[in-house]
């Protein structure tokens, strides 16, 4: 994405997913990982929660019930995204149409993967998260608005700030390409490598 496509706010319906420790095996089961592309992972996202063994929709799962079939925000339990480093989990969630997860804390690799793919992970207190769980359980599907610039979440009844580190905030708003950005520091990387050479501690795999 270019600078002129900045994402400053995320608005939509939120679905409550209160379970603690939802891991990336649950978010993206392994049978969807045998791929060399990033595409086609929307079907895999939460597959075992969304579908039964015969491939039928589980009517009791929140994302299969209106109005949450339209949800683009999840209110999640503690330690969401724990486990494997698989970025496929985030790719699949994005392809399923999820733009943000509001939670109390996220596993580190998942958090970094989310940032690289425009998935916002605002962190709030457990009390505030529980309020959002309650709010999003309302079947009328009332809207939640996340303002990335001001770090605020607003609904008809709740108005709160959230935590997000500066670098992640900037990355999400600007949708930049980290690899290309970092290559602007090629000179500094070369200088560092020269120092490694001088100290004779360069790792070389043969």
């Amino acid at each position, binding site marked *: 994405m270019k600078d002129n496509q900045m994402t400053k706010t995320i608005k939509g319906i939120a679905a409550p997913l209160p379970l603690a420790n939802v891991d990336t095996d649950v978010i993206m089961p392994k049978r969807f990982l045998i791929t060399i592309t990033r595409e086609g992972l929307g079907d895999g996202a939460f597959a075992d929660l969304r579908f039964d063994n015969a491939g039928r929709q589980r009517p009791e799962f929140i994302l299969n019930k209106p109005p949450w079939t339209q949800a683009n925000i999840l209110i999640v339990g503690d330690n969401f995204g724990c486990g494997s480093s698989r970025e496929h989990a985030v790719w699949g969630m994005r392809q399923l149409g999820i733009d943000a997860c509001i939670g109390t804390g996220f596993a580190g690799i998942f958090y970094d993967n989310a940032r*690289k793919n425009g998935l916002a992970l605002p962190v709030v207190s457990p009390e505030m998260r529980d309020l959002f769980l309650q709010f999003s359980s309302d079947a009328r599907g009332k809207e939640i608005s996340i303002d990335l610039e001001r770090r605020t979440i607003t609904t008809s009844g709740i108005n709160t700030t959230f935590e997000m580190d500066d670098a992640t905030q900037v990355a999400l708003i600007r949708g930049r390409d*980290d690899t290309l950005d970092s290559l602007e520091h090629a000179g500094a990387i070369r200088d560092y490598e020269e120092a490694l050479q001088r100290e*004779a501690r360069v790792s070389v795999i043969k």
Partner: protein
Amino acid sequence: MSRTLYDKLVDAHKVCDLPDGDMLIYVDLHIMNEYTSPQAFSGLYTKGLEVWRAEAHLAVIDHVNATRSREPHDTESKLLIDNLQSNCSKHGIAFYGLGDPRQGIEHVVVPEQGLVAPGMLIACGDSHTTTYGAYGALGFGIGTSEVEHVLATQTLRYKRMKTMRVTVNGDVAPGVTAKDIIMKVVQVVGAGGANGFAVEFAGSAIHSLDMAGRMTVCNMAVELGARAALIAADEVTETALKGHSHSGQFAYKAESWISDPKAIFDEEFTISGADIEPLITWGTSPDQSVPITANVPCAEDYISPKAKALLSRSLQYMGLIEGQSAQSIKIDTAFIGSCTNSRIEDLREAAKILEGRHVAKGVEAIVVPGSAMTRIKAEAEGLRAIFEAAGFEWRPEAGCSMCLAMNDDIAMDGERVASSTNRNFEGRQGRGARTHLMSPAMVAAAAISGHLADVRDFK
């Protein structure tokens, strides 16, 4: 100013600060596997980028390969295997493929080949890269976009973590292993209790472990959310590094890779080694464990409705009853393998229990040595003969296998597995499969008994 080992490692690898508050850190060694790297190479090609320094990377096939034979078991896994081989050959990156005598699970292979040493920074598209902390190296898992970033720049964007020290004092009792120590830590700190932290393990129970034990501890630190795990280098580390030409060049200042005595950690936990018993998990998160002598929890053990709901969901998935004794849990399968516990030391521990005994009727028992070198060594020591005489199936090819069931080693719906692996998540070993984590010796004890059993009854 006093610094922690973690801060020293970050400082030593800082290339420059970035305007948004991150820094660029230099990656000494980057390891790749076949399932988290394909899209990283595609990213390079799309953006027209080169690999910055090809000789700083190592690629290993381990996640999707079959372990019964060297031939891929299906066309999809062959596609991933061939894709990595072709990407590596295009860029001149070292590649340990199927049939290579150095092939195996990446986190078993790297130390075995002497490629890790104190003071290094190692990244890999696999969460269990925390393993290298056992050597006083900063190792951590990364996503595929970051794999692309390392390939193109040899660096990562990084934000300094908070620090936590977990001290395990005293000695552990006979029958209690490194696996039990880390399972206890996960139980005490909680899954996610160390999110945002780099954890240093200290104390006499940690430093009396051999390198294999230390790797087991650091490996599973990610199950408490730690983005890095560290154990300061000592004489045990130094001895392990001797004779390895690669790591030798780093090791010359191994003594400087320790936390200063007055360094302050953001959080501290202390556990008494004497309080640790052999543990088993009963639930679907690695922190849901009890001693093998205890019972599965009851709803009345918890106060909050959330905790009660979590217990109920976990027990339902696991097919267990509140309060049933751990040793009453019957198993279908016993699995010894994975980056947590498939090293020669692990196989020796399990073989001690299995020698002269036999797997219970109806239990399928499998052992997958962590690497080709481990397998050959184990066969030479006579371990294969012990496993096979006991009724274990000895797999000829190394890989992650049933730890995450990305190959054809998949547990069926409802199948209950005593497993020396690292994760008991829903569906981890197969859709509907039920995993109980424990030490390799405890897996052997369970295999013989047909139910979860106390390894201390087998001496």
